[in-house]
């Protein structure tokens, strides 16, 4: 952007009066632009360049097993769409992202509302619910693997056994494995969403609630017609970031099931990782590009839906 502006200024076809204005603007903003250079450099080195390389490699047969790399056109993409595991990965990533983000927010929102009231020990509860988010996901996965294990000392099975419920093969049954993974992540991250709701709740004017009470509004109606619409920014942040990070799920799957049993809990990123591990870098790169496109599309749809909702609220 900076180079574009400089070239524009030097262009012989540009308007001299406008040039002066732009020059002045740059002169005023140059310290700030320069301060941004390190950040832009990080962005360039760690995101833009790797992304461009990934896109280029996705059209090659670069692998660990050949010293020669050649351009193969759309071969990798053709291969991807005939690979049944990709569809399992996309399906699981979507299920994980949607269910996880919905469950997190369905729990986080009422908890945040309760903890925003003048409750005793509310700060303690806030810290307690937020604390799992501080832990590394790999550590959480390791801990939960012992809680969910189907061996005799599985904590969760022992707990439900107290109520006479038969042990469940949480991680070993293809029908329950993904649900078990989601459960651990709802536990870990709903506190994060709760904190964002709390921050937003504290910015809602008390006047709105007082006015509604004078009008005879019930608590439930206050929640529906004041709290929820006023929380639109927090809901947007929680859903969009939750959805995008949900699509990127990787570490918890690796630490709990490694994508198994069979391919039943594979996600796009675990598959991409296994393609890299196999040494098929070109093929793995094409997985990365497909993932990027799916993420952009989904984020775009979500943002569009929010815009419609916000417009309606306004």
């Amino acid at each position, binding site marked *: 952007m900076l180079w574009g502006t400089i070239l524009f200024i030097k262009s012989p076809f540009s308007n001299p009066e406008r040039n002066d204005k732009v020059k002045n603007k740059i002169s005023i903003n140059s310290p700030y632009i320069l301060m941004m250079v390190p950040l832009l450099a990080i962005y360039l080195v760690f995101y833009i360049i790797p992304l461009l390389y990934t896109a280029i490699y996705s059209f090659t047969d670069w692998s660990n097993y050949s010293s020669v790399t050649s351009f193969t056109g759309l071969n990798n993409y053709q291969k991807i769409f005939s690979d049944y595991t990709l569809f399992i990965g996309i399906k699981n990533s979507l299920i994980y992202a949607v269910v996880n983000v919905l469950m997190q927010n369905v729990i986080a929102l009422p908890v945040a509302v309760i903890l925003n009231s003048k409750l005793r020990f509310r700060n303690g509860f806030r810290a307690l619910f937020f604390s799992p988010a501080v832990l590394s996901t790999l550590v959480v996965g390791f801990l939960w693997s012992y809680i969910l294990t189907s061996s005799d000392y599985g904590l969760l099975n022992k707990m439900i056994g107290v109520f006479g419920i038969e042990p469940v093969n949480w991680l070993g*049954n293809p029908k329950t494995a993904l649900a078990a993974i989601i459960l651990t992540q709802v536990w870990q991250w709903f506190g994060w969403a709760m904190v964002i709701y709390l921050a937003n709740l504290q910015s809602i004017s008390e006047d709105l609630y007082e006015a509604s009470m004078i009008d005879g509004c019930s608590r439930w109606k206050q929640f529906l017609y004041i709290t929820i619409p006023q929380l639109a920014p927090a809901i947007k942040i929680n859903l969009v970031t939750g959805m995008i990070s949900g699509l990127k799920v990787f570490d918890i799957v690796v630490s709990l099931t490694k994508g198994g049993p069979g391919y039943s809990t594979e996600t796009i990123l675990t598959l991409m990782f296994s393609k890299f591990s196999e040494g098929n870098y070109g093929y793995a790169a094409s997985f990365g590009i497909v993932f990027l496109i799916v993420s952009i599309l989904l984020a775009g749809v979500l943002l569009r839906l929010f815009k419609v909702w916000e417009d309606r609220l306004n």
Partner: protein
Amino acid sequence: MRKRRIFILSVLLVAFIIGGCSNSSNGSNDDTKLGNKTNKTISMIGWYEENIMEDTIQKINESLEGGYTLEYTFVNLKQFNNVLSTQLAAGEGPDIVMDGASFPARIKANYLLEITNEDFVTNFNEAGLELSSANGKVYGIPSYGWYSGVWYNKEIFETYNLTPPETFAELLEVCQTLTDHGVQPLGFGLSDSDTAWHSLVGYLENAFYNGGTQTTEFDTKFAEGEVTLSGNLDPYVNEWAQIIKKGFIDEKMLGISGEQILPDFLAGKIAMFNGGPWHYEQLKGGDIEFGMFSHLGNDKDEKWLVGGPAANFGINKNSKDPEGAKKVLALLASEEVQKTIVESNVGGFSYFKGIDTEIPEEYNDIKDVLAAGRVGVLWDRWGTNMPGQTMIDEGIKQLQGMVAGMTTTEQFLKAMDDKANSIRYQD
């Protein structure tokens, strides 16, 4: 003046960031390092922990001439393949390349120097050089021989008047007897371990290749894409799958990790589990009497263990000091260092001609098998033309599917064929 200062500061920050991205020296990046860095450092990375490698590295450094020092960096096995692959693909990596099932892949990718005419190559027998040779040329030397079998609890066997089984049919009978007495016969942690895969491969090694209808030549043909597993292995996999059908491997095991099996075995809750010498120290630390018997097929007189050369050592073609690396490789191939390597891996055996290792009494049931050299594994033979590790990973996944009831024998073999078709080097 202020702007100039900000500009200089920005430039310095950018330089610092980009500088931080540049490579250090030899690609060894983390974890533990053994050996002192000097001007002539030869690097090596591996997944053997420092307590296993310490004596070996020390012995080499004591004998290294010319001011060289060998520096060893431990990398966790789970990350090892990715770390080494990325470094080699970037034209860098350690001077000494250490790898197991993927060693043929490194040869194929032209990452290794040929060492066929080096004197020290003749120190090893043919089986030991199998994984590090291609087209009649040698690119590496073995460390020691690994193998897997079945650990069993002697006290439980004695309690029920059982003896180690001699055939696969006898193994099923033993399992049934133990089940009838309320003892869990076999322990498998299938959520993350390859033990069921070892069990199947062990059966195939005994029933299909040796004493069966085929020889190991079948794998050479499979590696080249001339035959398929599907249509050839079906009856054998079906026979092995009796172990699933009879419930000795069940769905519950899919929710258990490999490391959760050992405590149950040591507590006497499980009578047998698939494993190898790498479990020995932990088993020895327990309070039970145990032993190991071989994988089984139909012939009680000719049993085979699953195994082969463990890590192989070769010289990185992009090494900045191939002469120094060659000196280190020669020492790795010396009798003294080879003995040290085997001693550090209790129960392992050597491919070095003339080194006979003494193995503890717990291995008595497999002594004859080891002495006869009946140790082999199909993925090493497949590895001549495809990445063996990828086939192992696919095999584990498909077997999980079989245990979960999602995959039939036919689908399992078809999936293995499809995977092989997609990763053959000559495709």
